[in-house]
């Protein structure tokens, strides 16, 4: 119980810290929403009109900072996120985020899970077959792929599969704009085709890390006494590999996986940018380009909450699976 409370306390404190950074950062930096809006309207409006516009968009420029801060914290928790003051001026942020979220979750989430599963399997096999051909080549290959810049892999894939092949695979957007969304084979197929290149980009750059850590965990685990014991007892190799070694080697990777799931909604900004994929990462880039403060604040808050929640869940899961970690607190 004490453990749970401690973790929840940490959760609250981190969230508060992130939200506070998020609130004060724009206010310490040059510029203001008023100026952002002035720029947006090409300096055509009078200051009074600009203020009226800001006020109707939910901003209170003359309010005391303390009051603004409390208001802001309240709004973040109640989902009263206001409206964009950037390129989608006037559009409710919940609506914008709601449109973008499924695409990011679908693309980045699936690619991350696939990379983790594939990486883990390859890592287990490589660690198990130490000294095999696989193990001689794979680590070097994956050291290289895991150090490649995301966006460059994306550019390469576009060049090879889209530019050189005359548009064999689509290199931008989530589906052809002449299609109406719906649950029909044509639309779903189109969505999948559009997801291939960006998904592959994430997969290629993410899989290496999982392979390497899994292989190393596997090797360390295989040296443990209980494995030798198992071998001495004459257990089947398969059984040792999957039920004894892989399981235990897998546990430390779980928390890493939880973190990366949390980073799913924010982690692929560059990929979404390269492929013009209309997800949350692209939204953030766009918000930054247009100094859309409310948008940036909401996105940053969401990104932090996502990581926190997944880390928290993973902590509880680990504590439940492995009593030792509870003691460490």
């Amino acid at each position, binding site marked *: 119980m004490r453990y749970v409370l401690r973790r929840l306390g940490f959760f609250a*404190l981190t969230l508060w810290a992130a939200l506070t950074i998020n609130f004060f950062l724009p206010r310490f*930096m040059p510029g203001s929403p008023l100026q952002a809006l002035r720029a947006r309207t090409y300096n055509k409006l009078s200051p009074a009109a600009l203020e009226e516009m800001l006020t109707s968009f939910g901003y209170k420029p003359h309010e005391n900072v303390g009051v603004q801060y409390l208001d802001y914290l309240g709004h973040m928790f109640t989902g009263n996120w206001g409206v964009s003051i950037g390129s989608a001026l006037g559009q409710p942020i919940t609506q914008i985020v709601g449109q973008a979220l499924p695409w990011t979750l679908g693309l980045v989430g699936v690619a991350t899970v696939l990379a983790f599963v594939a990486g883990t399997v390859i890592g287990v096999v490589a660690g198990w077959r130490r000294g095999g051909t696989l193990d*001689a080549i794979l*680590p070097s290959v994956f050291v290289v792929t*895991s150090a490649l810049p995301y*966006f*460059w892999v994306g550019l390469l894939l576009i060049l090879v599969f889209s530019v050189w092949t005359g548009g064999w695979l689509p290199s931008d957007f989530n589906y052809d704009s002449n299609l109406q969304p719906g649950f029909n084979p044509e639309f779903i197929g189109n969505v999948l085709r559009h997801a291939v290149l960006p998904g592959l980009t994430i997969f290629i750059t993410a899989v290496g890390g999982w392979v*390497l850590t899994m292989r190393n965990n596997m090797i360390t685990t295989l040296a443990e006494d209980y494995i030798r014991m198992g071998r001495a007892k004459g257990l089947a190799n398969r059984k040792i590999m999957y039920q004894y070694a892989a399981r235990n080697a897998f546990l430390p990777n779980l928390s890493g996986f939880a973190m990366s799931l949390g980073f799913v909604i924010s*982690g692929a900004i560059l990929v979404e940018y390269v492929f013009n994929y209309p997800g949350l990462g692209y939204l953030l880039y766009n918000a930054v380009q247009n100094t859309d403060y409310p948008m940036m604040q909401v996105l*940053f808050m969401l990104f932090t909450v996502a990581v926190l929640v997944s880390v928290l869940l993973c902590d509880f899961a680990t504590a439940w699976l492995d009593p030792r970690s509870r003691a460490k607190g």
Partner: protein
Amino acid sequence: MTALLTTPPAAAAAPPSRRRGAFLRSVLRNRKALIGLVIFGVFTVMAAVPHLFTSVTEPNKLAFPPALPPSGDHLLGTTALGQDIWAQLVYGARQSLVIALVAGFFATVLSVLVGVSAAYLGGVADEALSMVINIFLIIPTFPLIIILATYAGKGTLTVVLIVLVVTGWSYGANQMRAQALSLRNRDFLESARVRGERRTYIILAEMLPTMTSLIVANFLGAALYSVLTAAGLQFLGLGDPNSISWGTMLYWSQNQQALQSGMPLWSIAPGLCVALLGVSFALLNYAFDEISNPALRPVRRRRATA
């Protein structure tokens, strides 16, 4: 035991020098490390004496006809604005290397400082510092970097460096703290305390040398992170677009749609350089891991070589 007690300086000095020799040998014997070192070496030479590689002295000057294909005069052709791509590549090495080394260095220093002090001080100080480390670990870094860089107004080298250090130290600090914690109650530190040495002395002269391998690994990791992140930032246009660096080249080529308008080298070449520099750090890091943890080394198979 007594020998150790009476001659700590010699003992502290001697093993590292011996280790260093051995380390060098094992690096040279490790193929990954060797490849990493060679790539790094080539880029270092490029950064130090760019004029050995190209006759162009002002790579950003619009000195040539635009969009030339690769030729003897222009190894990789020219940009849509009329700059020599090869020359930009050569001169771009400097900034990427500086970012990698400087940001890597300061991030490592910060992680050592925070991590080791947390572990050594213990108690409330440790609680507080761990909390800070954990918060920085969890806050999504790349979005934060983008927001910071935007608010800072313009992405000069200093801004990019500061942002990288601020966001890049926490992972290492966590590891430092863990290792320092495991060292805390070792005999040689206990004995130093008994001798009445000052804290700073104990940390600097006793603890840090034993953590060298972790520190080096951390530096390499931070350098890799800095190279990739800085290139990403510049690619998005959050760097200084008039500077000469690989990330900036990527930004310009992307804006001029180099891939689609028949100048793919403009885009692919700087990306490859970023990738190569990243790979060199990753290879060194991995090789370093293998050297300090022999269990991970590839098994040499006689069958295959015979």
